[in-house]
């Protein structure tokens, strides 16, 4: 049910609050496909114990992700990864993607690629994701 290798790492001494670090890691795991819809997250208690952090911190992270629609609370079981939802207008969703596209384009330019070559890369990644 639960991948035992599933683990978070937090740095309490970072300037980023621990709950945000957890949120970022769950988001990253979802974005990278490490976590897919329906996956169960470890419980608040378990996560807090493993990381030696306050339970309220974990609870806050999970709840925020729930209100963002990335997680779903399932009574008696815990938090599951929610199915991806296309909310907002196309414009809004494009806007959401832009900050991720910016570093891609910058890096491409640093590597001396033309616009068309950068787009080729994006297209080939897209082809790889085709289901």
């Amino acid at each position, binding site marked *: 049910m639960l991948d035992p290798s599933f683990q978070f790492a937090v740095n*309490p*001494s*970072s300037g980023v609050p621990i709950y*945000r670090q957890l949120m970022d890691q769950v988001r990253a795991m979802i974005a990278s496909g490490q976590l897919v819809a329906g996956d169960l997250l470890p419980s608040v208690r378990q996560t807090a114990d493993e990381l*030696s952090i306050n339970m*309220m*911190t974990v609870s806050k992270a999970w709840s925020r992700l729930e209100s963002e629609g990335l997680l779903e609370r399932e009574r008696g079981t815990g938090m599951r990864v929610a199915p991806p939802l296309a909310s907002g207008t196309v414009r809004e969703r494009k806007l959401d993607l832009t900050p991720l596209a910016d570093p891609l384009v910058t890096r491409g330019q640093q590597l001396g690629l033309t616009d068309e070559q950068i787009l080729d890369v994006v297209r080939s990644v897209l082809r790889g994701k085709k289901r």
Partner: protein
Amino acid sequence: MNTEEVVRVSGLCKSFEARQVLNEIDLTIPEGSVVGLLGKNGAGKSTLLKCVLGLLKPTSGSIRVFNEEPWHLSSESKSRIGYVGQDINLYPWMKVGNVVDYVGSFYPNWNSGFARKLLSRWDLPVDERVGPLSQGQQQKLALVLALGHEPQLLILDEPVAALDPSARREFLRTLLEIAHDPQRSIVFSTHITSDVERVADRVVFVKDGRIVYDSPLDVMKDGVKRLRISASSNLPDTFAIRDALRCEVRGRHALVAVPDASDSMLRELEARWDAEVLVEDLSLEEIFLELHSTEPLMAAATGEAS
């Protein structure tokens, strides 16, 4: 007083002779919270804790603990408090196990099973005498004695000062287990900021006898930021940001720590000075240092922040 408040301090002042150590302290500890008390040596943390415990009499102001005055605390309320101070004076001639049994006998609610568990978890030799134990081991023993009756209010003054890193981690784990009970509250003073970051949900900074910052840890980390401002031309000497904890201007660059950075504030700075603003997250240790950097600026900011 709200029943969910375990401690309420208002307008507390404490002077020793002519020296004022605490100045108009207001502090509330709700049930279930874990408060990290931070400040430099001599800031007044221990005096504050001792006043809350009824070990020192306030010069003025009021303190309520379990809705009683600490100076006249009932024994019932005392049995709900656990405390470890900085000077640990145990019974050097007794064996570790005997000290635990002896102290436990004073408490009707002593959990000897839990105390024994802590002894073994913290590698304390039950059959050895207390006297020759190292400072760190004595500190661990004092913690066992403060935890054995499962107090509702745990007050710890520099609890980890003498502990090695692995003992500190063990101790923090125990503290977290306690904190996971929503009815129990913990107040601990320390200058090891990373411990606070793991365990505390709220941070209180004490400086020169005053509380200069009191906020949930997450809110503090979300809000307190260091801005590196690079303007297109030299910034005026009068350059300032309201409530700034620190503000250094050099030519067209400025380094400013603000208690509450917001997007609108950044946009405004960028527009007003035609500047590029870099925002840096700060760890608790860095925030600590920012709060203690330039004295005159701090004095101006404290009134707003506290």
